[in-house]
């Protein structure tokens, strides 16, 4: 819209948007600030926003006295593991559906999507019992597999919509130019697909990192990722706001940063390409 906007209108919009934006962001900001307070300051009356003695004490305590590093590693392994596994399964599937569509491709895609609609609670018991009987309850392996499966439809869909945007003629051109299947994938398809794959990976890590149904139900102490570990703060003993805040800040920081980078792709991924 090539149109001059009055300065006044722009200022009002700026003021309104910033106020609302800060209000929405405030709980996160408050958590981050509190993580630098002492426990006493964290519940001081009146609460102080900036004027207190900033301390890193809570981070040290959380890191040393609890098993925080273990749970952090669990989160990393589970989200990266499930993403990688999902990618290995999904890339060939999405590739062939995008470039060699058959009569049933659309049905297969829709069916894959439908598995995502299955409420987890509907299959909680069998999965719980199977994991128990296989002895993988409270193991990272079980979570990697389950999170791979629940996010597989999203990965396939996202890759499919990205691959679909690569014109088929380019691949044909490569074949006319004498590229073998291997060099076609290596020199033409991959470089063109990398941005799409990257955003798929990013979104999937976010989803896996924050998944809080299976992680809460299938883990106890050993393999609990941060979602489950943080939940254990819900029955607190003593003063703990500052430590809770420190643990929370560390748990959400990596994903917050990743998420900000993947805003655009997020829309496409979460709406299965229905909104771009």
């Amino acid at each position: 819209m090539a149109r001059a906007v009055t300065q006044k209108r722009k200022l009002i919009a700026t003021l309104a948007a910033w106020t609302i934006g800060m209000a929405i962001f405030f709980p996160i900001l408050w958590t981050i600030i509190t993580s630098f307070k002492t426990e006493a300051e964290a519940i001081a009356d009146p609460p102080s926003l900036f004027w207190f003695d900033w301390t890193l004490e809570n981070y040290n305590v959380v890191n040393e006295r609890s098993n925080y590093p273990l749970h952090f590693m669990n989160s990393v392994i589970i989200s990266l593991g499930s993403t990688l596994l999902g990618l290995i399964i999904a890339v060939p599937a999405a590739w062939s559906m995008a470039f060699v569509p058959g009569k049933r491709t659309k049905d297969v895609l829709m069916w894959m999507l439908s598995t995502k609609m299955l409420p987890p609670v509907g299959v909680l018991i069998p999965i719980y019992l199977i994991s128990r009987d296989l002895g993988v309850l409270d193991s990272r392996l079980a979570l990697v597999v389950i999170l791979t499966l629940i996010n597989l439809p999203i990965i396939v869909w996202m890759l499919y919509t990205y691959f679909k945007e690569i014109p088929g003629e380019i691949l044909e051109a490569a074949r006319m130019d004498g590229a073998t299947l291997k060099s076609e994938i290596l020199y033409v398809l991959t470089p063109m697909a990398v941005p799409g794959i990257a955003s798929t990976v990013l979104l999937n890590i976010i989803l896996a990192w924050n998944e809080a149904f299976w992680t809460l139900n299938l883990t106890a102490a050993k393999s609990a990722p941060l979602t489950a570990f943080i939940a254990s703060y819900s029955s607190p003993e003593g003063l703990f706001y500052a430590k809770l805040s420190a643990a929370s800040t560390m748990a959400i920081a990596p994903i917050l940063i990743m998420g900000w980078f993947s805003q655009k792709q997020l829309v496409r991924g979460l709406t299965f390409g229905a909104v771009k």
Partner: protein
Amino acid sequence: MSTQHSRTAARFMIAPATVLLLGWMLIPLCMTLYYSFRRYRLLTPDRTGWVGFRNYENFLTNPAFMDALTNTLALVLGVLIITVVLGVLLAILLDQPMFGQGIVRILVIAPFFVMPTVSALVWKNMFMNPVNGLFAYAAKAVGLQPYDFLSQAPLLSIIGIVSWQWLPFATLILLTAIQSLDSEQMEAAEMDGASPLSRFWFITLPHLSRAITVVILIQTIFLLSIFAEILVTTNGGPGTASTNLTYLVYAESLLNYDVGEGSAGGVIAIILANIVAIFLMRMIGKNLDA
């Protein structure tokens, strides 16, 4: 591209994903269905047998079920109304020319990336706690009695927390949709003498209708399965005041160790979710043709 060779290769490449998902869907589904007709309690695993529809009867006549059903509906509808209405308004605001638009956007979408257990705990302790929460301080500061949100109005509090988590999602999708609105259409409407309000009503809103439908359907799928927020804040209580269907099934099977009745509840949850799913699939399927 469609030579015989490549078609055969394609089938092989789709196979792993298809087989895995098929297994993931069918095996547990059949087991849930199987257990739902069996007597199976984890505390007395030896006494088993077919019980017909008794598990369904027990689950459906359990007074907690009606509570859970209404709570589930209230939770879904409440969050949907809040996030869609505020989402539309916020999206329109963010679409206006302003300073630091990128940063505001980042601030607004941030809650979506916070893991459910963290946001539930932060709200529960640091904001809603009747003694040390920020809301309590605020109330005291203006001379009011602090309000114990999670025991006085547990469901409303959870609706608030969940809305905070999902508002960014709705806003982001609606904003994306608004930005795809052809500005010439708006200018044409302006030339036709439409006021800002009628432009919103006759142009913007119809343009957003598709995105709004997508937001509603996708959120519904997720909102039906809200679990961590309840587990962390209220454990479904007090009583069953904030128990939803998902939490009830969890409580039946893993807290009361009644696998049979829990499975029956699971089947009911699947049926409810499928009703929503059918609409969503139609929407996305249509888009696939376009």
